[in-house]
Structure formats: structure tokens, C-alpha cells
């Protein structure tokens, strides 16, 4: 869903650029609490994997393809602040080195694919985590559902931006219908890839998955009441 130069007018592109810059500023501050010597390499892995997976366009309908966006995957692997940073690095490299996504549209693309998908993915994931049984086996399906929904929501945000500063005068209802329709199918692919990626890491090292730590901590307390008591009194 990389927006090229020219789809949105200059004022809108400047505005999205400022919002994206602010979001990165907030993420740089917040990521400090998510990253340490142990988790920092995971941020590199998350960004590298998302870049690679974004190259793999899969067919979704006749003459249409889609690829992973990766916001929900990033947020559950490394946390929301670091997730925004990982997505921003991917989108900057894609635009500057591979001419994928306009340079004046970089702010738009970071906002749509780096911030909206991360926030929506995190919100839905945390909501599902609260509603579902607190089990490790629930983490990957919850992320997959969050991933699925994050894609059409991001597509709708593009429509909202187009309503504000679209270069062509087209009926917005039709645009919204077309964008959501196609991006629900892309979202299904996003869910499958996210499920496989998060499921694989949970299978070997669940403690490395940011979104699984809450479940692991609760499990630890249930399994080791003595340790919990000790932790509470010390």
C-alpha cells in the first residue's frame, strides 16, 4: 500500500510528514523502556523480516496483489514504540533505496503503515488478550486477528487522507468500498504470515515475544507460588 508521489497534495503531505516525525519522536523516547541488550537484536530481526516479507506480493483477486504490512507483527514482537521505529526504518529504506513509496509521501506511508497498523494492531491485540484465556497458545491467534483488521483500517485511513488532500476528484464512497474490499483479502494474507512468524518464535523462545510476556509472567506466578511470595515480600 505504498503511496507514490502525487496522490496527495503538498499541504496534506507536509501535514502527514509532521505527524510522522512527531510519532517517531515519541517512539524514540518510549522505545528506551522496551529495548535492552537482550531485546535490541530482536528489533533488527523484526525490521529485516518485515522488509523481506513485504517483497512477497501474493495474489488476492484477478490482477491484484498485496503484501504484508507488518505493523501488528512488529508490535507484538518488540512493543508499540519499537514497532513504530522498525516500520519507519523499513519504509525509509524502501522509499530512498528501492523507489518504493514516494519521497514526499514518506510521511504518509509512515503514518499509514508504520503508525496506524501498529496502534490498531496493539489495541486489538490487547483487547483480545484481555478477553481470551490467558494462555500462551492464544497469543499468535490474537495477533493474527489484530493483523487482519489493521490492514483495512489502514486502507480506510488512506481514504480519509484522500478526502482531505486527494489530487483527483473522485467519489469517496466508491474509493472507500474498493479500498476496504481489496484490503480485507490482503489482511487475510497478513494474518496468515503474522500467525506463522509469531507462532514460530513462541515455539522456541516465547520470552522474546513482547506480547507474550504478560502471559508468561502470570504463568510463572501460578506455577511457582513460593517464588511469587518471595517476590512480593522482598
Amino acid at each position, binding site marked *: 500500500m505504498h503511496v507514490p508521489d502525487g496522490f496527495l497534495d503538498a499541504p496534506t503531505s507536509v501535514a502527514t510528514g509532521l505527524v510522522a516525525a512527531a510519532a517517531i519522536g515519541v517512539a524514540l523516547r518510549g522505545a528506551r523502556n522496551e529495548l535492552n*541488550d537482550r531485546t*535490541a537484536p530482536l528489533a533488527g530481526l523484526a525490521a529485516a523480516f518485515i522488509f523481506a516479507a513485504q*517483497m512477497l506480493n501474493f495474489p488476492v483477486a484477478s490482477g491484484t496483489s498485496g503484501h504484508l504490512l507488518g505493523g501488528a507483527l512488529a508490535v507484538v514482537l518488540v512493543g508499540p514504540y519499537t514497532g513504530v521505529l522498525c516500520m519507519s526504518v523499513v519504509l525509509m529504506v524502501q522509499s530512498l533505496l528501492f523507489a518504493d513509496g514516494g519521497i514526499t509521501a514518506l510521511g504518509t506511508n509512515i503514518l499509514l503503515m508504520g503508525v496506524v497498523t501498529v496502534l490498531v494492531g496493539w489495541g486489538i491485540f490487547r483487547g483480545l488478550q484481555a478477553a481470551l484465556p490467558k494462555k500462551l497458545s492464544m497469543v499468535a491467534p490474537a495477533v493474527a486477528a489484530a493483523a487482519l483488521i489493521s490492514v483495512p483500517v489502514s486502507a480506510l485511513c488512506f481514504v480519509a487522507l484522500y478526502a482531505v488532500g486527494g489530487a483527483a476528484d473522485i467519489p469517496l464512497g466508491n474509493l472507500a468500498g474498493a479500498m476496504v474490499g481489496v484490503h480485507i483479502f490482503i489482511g487475510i494474507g497478513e494474518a496468515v504470515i503474522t500467525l506463522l512468524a509469531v507462532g514460530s518464535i513462541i515455539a522456541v523462545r516465547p520470552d522474546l515475544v513482547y506480547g507474550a510476556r504478560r502471559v508468561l509472567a502470570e504463568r510463572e506466578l501460578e506455577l511457582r507460588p513460593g517464588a511469587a511470595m518471595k517476590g512480593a515480600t522482598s
Partner: protein
Amino acid sequence: MTNTSSRVATKWVVFGGVVVALILAGVVSFYASGSPDGLNKVALDRGFSETEEPHSAADGPFAGYSSKGIDNERLAGGIAGVVGVVVVLALSTGLAFVVRRRHDEESDAPSDANRQSTG
């Protein structure tokens, strides 16, 4: 009490994941669908794709995920993919280590600091 001896080390998880990423970008990407992606297709169908302006980095050595000067399409795309994974990995790992919490700043998380600073 932690099963540190039996579990896979973090560096091997990262190494394995990076190998998967390199294979996806370097080899599997050749088989990706060449159809326009969702947004581009909608732009074509709804008649606003002509407002797209040429990319100012379109003459770059890896523009369009293809390495300039290499005729073999599979090789040109594969090299571009590998370069992309390496660049993204280097930038994001570097950024993460710059931003991260240092050991001496972890006084408010004693259990975490203890676990890491042994050795």
C-alpha cells in the same frame, strides 16, 4: 530455576530469523506476484493513478527492487533483496542499541539487571 541451558540462545533465534529473511528476499521474492498491489489497482480502476509522479530516486542502483547493470532478472532481484535485508537489519539494530536502556540505568529493574549482568 530458569532453563537457560536447554533453550535456544537469543543469538541463534536472531540468526535463524535473518537467514529466513535473506532467503525470502533473495530467492522467494522472484516468485512474488507481479500484479499491481491493492492501492495501485484501486487507483487504476478509479482513475486517479495518472496523478502519480515519477519517483525522484527511480535512477538509483536498486530502484524497483532490481540491481542496475545485471541482466539476469532473478539475480538482479535477489541481490537487491539481500542488500535491502542487510541495510534494514544494520539500521534497525544500530538504532535499537543506541536507543536501548544501558545496564547502569536499570537500577529500577533489579531482577532484570541481575539476570543480565552475571558473568
